[in-house]
């Protein structure tokens, strides 16, 4: 059963009760998730570290990935100064992370993407070249939220990124 899920749904061999741990570099924790928001230009976002990220890394089945991307499409994305996003920003690309109601200050600028794309990458190690690569495993794109939805979540009118004001 576990082997079938590995073959069909790209479950990592490390999980699912099949005792495939320590057999491959393709562990769930070694996979990488790229979240791209299509705003006025494509920007990457820091996926929140939670149980759903762990689940979709271990088991990126079509259904799980779709569900995960849809959950991210309802997130209010803001620019922030945190160490993780800061590293991304240093590569001259803005990185966004979810706004947390009650924990973060009310944001003035939010990104309201047209689409949210989630891509799962798996690691591959070439033992002859001693080279580590990440290869795309699966990707899904879902529509972004409506402006009204984001405003309702934040609780007020916001300065949106220009492209979204044109929508």
């Amino acid at each position: 059963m576990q082997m079938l899920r590995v073959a069909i749904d790209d479950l990592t061999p490390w999980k699912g009760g099949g005792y495939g741990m320590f057999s491959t570099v393709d562990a769930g924790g070694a996979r990488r998730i790229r979240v791209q928001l299509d705003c006025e230009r494509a920007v990457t976002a820091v996926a929140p570290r939670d149980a759903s990220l762990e689940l979709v890394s271990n088991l990126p089945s079509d259904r799980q990935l779709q569900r995960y991307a849809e959950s991210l499409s309802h997130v209010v994305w803001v620019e922030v100064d945190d160490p993780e996003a800061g590293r991304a920003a240093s590569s001259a690309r803005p990185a966004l992370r979810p706004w947390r109601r009650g924990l973060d200050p009310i944001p003035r600028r939010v990104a309201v993407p047209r689409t949210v794309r989630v891509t799962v990458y798996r690691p591959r190690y070439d033992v002859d070249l001693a080279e580590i690569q990440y290869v795309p495993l699966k990707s899904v794109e879902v529509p972004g939220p409506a402006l009204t939805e984001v405003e309702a979540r934040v609780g007020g009118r916001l300065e949106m990124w220009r492209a979204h004001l044109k929508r």
Partner: protein
Amino acid sequence: MTPHTGIRSYVATALEPTLAVASGLTLMLLALYSGGSWTTRVPIAVFCTTGLVFATLRQSPWFWLPIALLLSVTVLPNLYTRDNHKVLMALWSLAVLGAMAAKDEEGLRIAARWMIGLAFLFATVWKVIAPDFLNGAFIEFTLLTDNRFRGFTSWTTGFPSDLDIANRESLSELSDSVRFGNDTGAQGKVLNTFPAIQALAVCITWYTVLLEGAIAVTFLGSGRVAIFKRARNALCLMFLLTTYAVATVIGFGWLLALMGYTQCESHERQSRLAFVAAFLLLQVFLVPWDLVLSDIVGVFKDGGAQ
């Protein structure tokens, strides 16, 4: 009778009956390593403490029923995020429940043997069919990048710390570029390695797959082939003492030692003692020996300087 044999005989007798000792060790295992959220940890801690204090209570199937149910309902919905040994723990608690209900020590012995055999069979199959195990890629990558193996790699191969740091930085940069940057990983990063690491990786790869395969075969075939029956305990102990000294997944090690103890025949007293000793020794592997030794060396150096 010498004092030596006297102590051995006393300890071996004290380890009877199997069901009582196995249930006690199971409670220790669950108290320390069942993990999960507070909704599991708190009731498990209460049950384990109660069961350890009241020995007769832990002989009752009614005591084991809520434990087995709790572990099962915690593991099943989270099958794709929980570690494999947590799944095995839940199955083991069900086996203990069954044994207590039927008062069947022999049944638990057989269950333990099959659980060890099947777990190692699946582990071996995965290592054989995985595209990056038998060629040494997984072990080499693990030796180069896994924090748990850092001290071992440096100690056995003399891998310099500056190359180790450079590898970790390369990996971190690549990871960041995949998640946030333009470069989505296709370029890759070449890691620093050593001929000694490559040779070590090949040795560990074949040692692991052959040992795990041998454990699977001897445990599953011990009922039919006499030599398998004789060899199985030594192989399992060898695995416990070599694997967990490096990969310190002590929860799994304890479960394996406990099941190893339980599946021993009544006349295999030395093996039973050895599994209990392994149960204790696994904790010693958690000591950060590199720090302790460097502290000791530091004390001697300071003493010499004064």
